[in-house]
């Protein structure tokens, strides 16, 4: 089961946190800090798995993370999840975000926390992987968005504001997440032999 899903940027600012087990407010923050501390120390060329984060549980749990440009996507799972499977799931999640937001960037996560949560809810429900099929997820999210639009009204205004902010020139803010291996045409692994 998935215990928590955390997204934070290179400076450790949380962008999304979802806990599937209950922790107190303070503990949650501490977990985020701790996780960031652990993950940020790791080089690019080491493996994507970490064991024994102190707070989120003993040796049973492991952290599986991926680093995309400015953001870290961290899944904390217990031993019943497959490492590479979760790694694939992160990829699916990011690809889905990318499709939903059209070139997703950190700002999207800030201004559309609710949307991100909704997408996540379609993939993972109560700590269980619900859907791994990207198209299916997008269909669900779109269906909900459609209704949102029909009911919109006021909701349009902030959306426009957001797009204005997005188009502003903010040199210090990375504008796009450069998702290196997001396309399916990733260089394949050299064949075993």
């Amino acid at each position: 089961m998935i215990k928590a899903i955390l997204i934070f940027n290179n400076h450790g600012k949380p962008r999304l946190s979802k806990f599937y087990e209950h922790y107190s407010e303070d503990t949650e923050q501490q977990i985020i800090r701790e996780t960031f501390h652990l993950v940020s120390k790791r080089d690019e060329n080491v493996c994507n798995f970490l064991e024994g984060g102190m707070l989120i549980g003993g040796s049973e749990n492991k952290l599986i993370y991926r680093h995309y440009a400015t953001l870290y996507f961290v899944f904390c799972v217990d031993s019943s999840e497959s490492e590479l499977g979760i790694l694939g799931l992160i990829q699916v999640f990011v690809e889905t975000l990318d499709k939903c937001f059209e070139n997703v960037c950190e700002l999207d996560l800030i201004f559309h926390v609710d949307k991100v949560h909704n997408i996540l809810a379609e993939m993972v429900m109560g700590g269980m992987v619900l859907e791994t099929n990207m198209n299916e997820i997008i269909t669900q999210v779109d269906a909900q968005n459609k209704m949102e639009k029909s009911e919109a009204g006021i909701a349009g205004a902030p959306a426009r504001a957001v797009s204005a902010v997005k188009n502003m020139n903010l040199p210090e803010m990375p504008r796009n997440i450069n998702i290196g291996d997001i396309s399916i045409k990733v260089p394949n692994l050299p064949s075993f032999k």
Partner: protein
Amino acid sequence: MKEIMVRAIYCEMLGYQASFSYIHAIKLAQQGSVLEKRVGYLAVSLFLNETDEFLLLLVNTVLKDLQSTNLIEVCMALTVVSQMFPKDMIPAILPVVEEKLTHPKEIIRRKAVLALYKFYLIAPNQVQHIHSKFRKALCDKDPGVMTASLHIYLQLIKENPESYKDLTGSMVTILRQVVGGKLPLDFNYHSVPAPWLQIQLLRILAYLGKEDQGTSEMMYDVLEESLRRAEMNHNITYAILFECVKTIYTVHPKSQLLEKAAECIGNFVLSPKINLKYLGLKALTYVVQQDANLALPHQMTIIECLDHSDVIIKRETLELLFRITNAQNVTVIVEKMLEFLRLTCDDYSTIDLVGKVAELTMNSVFSLGGDVMQPDIPNNFLRLLAEGVDNVEDRQLRLFAVDSYVSLLQGVTAKLPQRFLQVISWVLGEYSYLREEESDPGSVMRLLARLLDQRHTSTETRSWVLGAMTKLCSSPVSVALARDVFGCGVRFIPQVDSSLSFLDGYVSEALAAGAAPYKSPHQRQEDLVQEKALSLEPYGLSLPVSLSSCSITDRLTDRRSPTLLSMSSVSQCYFSSTTLKLEGVKRVWGKDGYLAQQQSAGETPTPLVELPNPLLSPQSPPSQTQKPSSGLEPDQEKRQLASSLFVGLGSHNSVCLVRLPSTVWLFIKHCQSANQSHGGAATTTTPQQTSQRTLDHTTSNGNPHVEGTEQRVEAGGPLSLIRGNGMVAVVPPTHTQTDPQTQQDLHPAPALERPRDLPLASHLPAELSGLARSEFTPLCSDQDSSLALSACRVYKEDALVLLVFISNNNDSALHQMVLQLTCKELEVYIFQTGLNNKVPFSFFRNPGWKIPESRQKYQGILQPGFKKNTDLLPLTVSTGDYGKMWLSFSHDLKQNLRLVTTEHQEPLTATLDALKGKLHLHVVDIIGSEGIVACRLLQGPGQGQPCLLHCRVNADSLAVWLRSPVPELPDSLLYHCQKALTET
């Protein structure tokens, strides 16, 4: 409102309190439009938890939404239900959720299944009745619903595989269909059909087939097919492969599949992708539990992983090693672990865990390895416990140790090895105060007392136990408790004899509740001497002594500063394993030198170059790694490490414990403070240390040897009893006694010349004259030197020859001479020269020998056939060969020696010359401040085995690094070097 709620969510995520908005979130979920409802539900699921009272307000809304016709609303309600729902409210909505299992929309069915799974996790009893509906879900026409139901079955089967065996068939069918690509293309991910589903199914199969041949047989085919199909090179296929391998190793074994799986693991381990390497190690860790031999083909990779830059990989490797630990490789593995622990001492997240791993190993090792284990392992372990400043990790580790040992003692202690008991008692004595607030110290005391009473407990262990009790008493506890101890002591003393009576003193002191006056240092000295007399084993000496002095310090500090206390015990442990007072330097050496070895092991092979590795400074490992080393050697070194790590695993492996030089291995952490506190403790402990030296040495050597032989020359009449010394440097348990009894003429004439002036060298037999030999040592003579005995050693290629010269400087003839040799292992040959007098000469061992005796000189050559011999011959090698040899030897030792200073020579040259003269070493080369020296063993089991020395002048001492293929050789050679230099 919705926007505000989103902001509140954001604030909450950043860690700011937004509890004022909780009620509004609920309101939003209750009243808003669909859109607002969604945000409201989201906020609720993020803000609240199962126990929150606000949730009760939501139950009605959820119920209403579940029954709504709007799909989205139902979905939202199900999501929130699966995220959190108060346990006691489940019955209220259960029927509605159940109903959703038959909903026409698959997304609703799927979510309903997961919601029910959540209910099952929270309250298994309440969903008991709908298990049949789960089966229906499993057979759902939509694969998504089926996938969701697998979550439930995974959990159910994990808990109780027996009752779901009938599902094996269906699971296998599902997997076969999935693997066969029967699912809609939608489910493909990177053109792999539903990988997550496959993983899930494989896991379920693993649970089902575990220890069940029948069930396992059903799945062999499909497993094989999955293995075969999963050949695409994408991460997700590796995930499937990994799962497959795990399943294959979990279910009832089938050799064909096992082979394939092993091959897969091999591919994983060898993969350049670090994630796969990690998984490969994990898989290995998993499979070695079934069959430790599987690790063998991957030895080299594992060794490489040990030096991997990624801490996680390293840890996984250690975990793997931990699994293959057996009595034979335990030393090496524990050392590796401790080393890792030392390197990561800042890493808060790992130190605790690794410490426990080490600890666990210690426990299992102590109970497994038992008394055959080298004494330095417990020493190292105790040092690990004792050193650290009082930070949290150390405290936890100690607490953990205390707890686990207490629980161990509460069980059956009869089977625990003595050495382990000693460690236990030390730990309890030292650290039970950490537990005092929670547990009654008396209970610990009683456990220890029980230990004392047991018959099988050895004397040595008893002294440890009593030491621990003393320490416990010296901490502020009740007098009654102390009386208990006293009782123990009294009961104990008559059992062992009076030699333990010094403990009486301790106990009575404890009785006075710590307020008693100290013993005078003199008295303490006596105690220690007694203790020494008590212990038979050399090892026993080192720690009980330091232990008792611990308790002295203990009383001095009155328990107020545990830090100082542990420090002083560190320094003592420390000293008990070093042979000389070389703390500061040795520390550096231990660390760097060993590291250097490690790094060179991790080096990528580079072409062979003239310059051999050991010429570089062993104290600067970084430079060493940059400099090229010969291509094959690191590999060989690795191989040696591998053989020591994997010893005892394969049947084809020779069963021998390759011992890494453990003396080298010292704990570095906080050593400086240890040194400081040593200053205080030194006043009381120095005498013990010096007296321990020799004995410690023999311990670390593995076999005791006697320094020098005692040569007793008895002469009836004019010759008096004189003790000769230092003739044969090291003779293992043998004694040579020469008792030449001479009967002289009644009329001795005045001496012609002093025996010392005799040109004895000219009397050397021709075949020995060209060989290296020691100086002639006069052994004894009678008052007027008319009859003298002298000897020298000659180093033959295959033997050490002891020449005994008997000089008769009288004109009168020797009528009879009896040479009595009481050493059984000596072979005796008699050479004689210049005989012109007929004197009967009888040999004790060969009574048949009757030799006419010389009037002037007689010499016999005794050729000892030593079983064990550490005497040395010079080894002439070139610098290049030296370099190659150096790398191939695994047993090394580092130590600092005194430099010999003379006026006209460089200190290094002078020292090496001194060593050369005394020990017959060959000085290969001297380059700058470094010199390399070689020698080989003359005889014995390791006959002809070389030992290489690498010396480097370091400030005012000589840092020596010894290496040899024979474990004991560096130790004993070092000892002789020290001795030789001290004599100079």
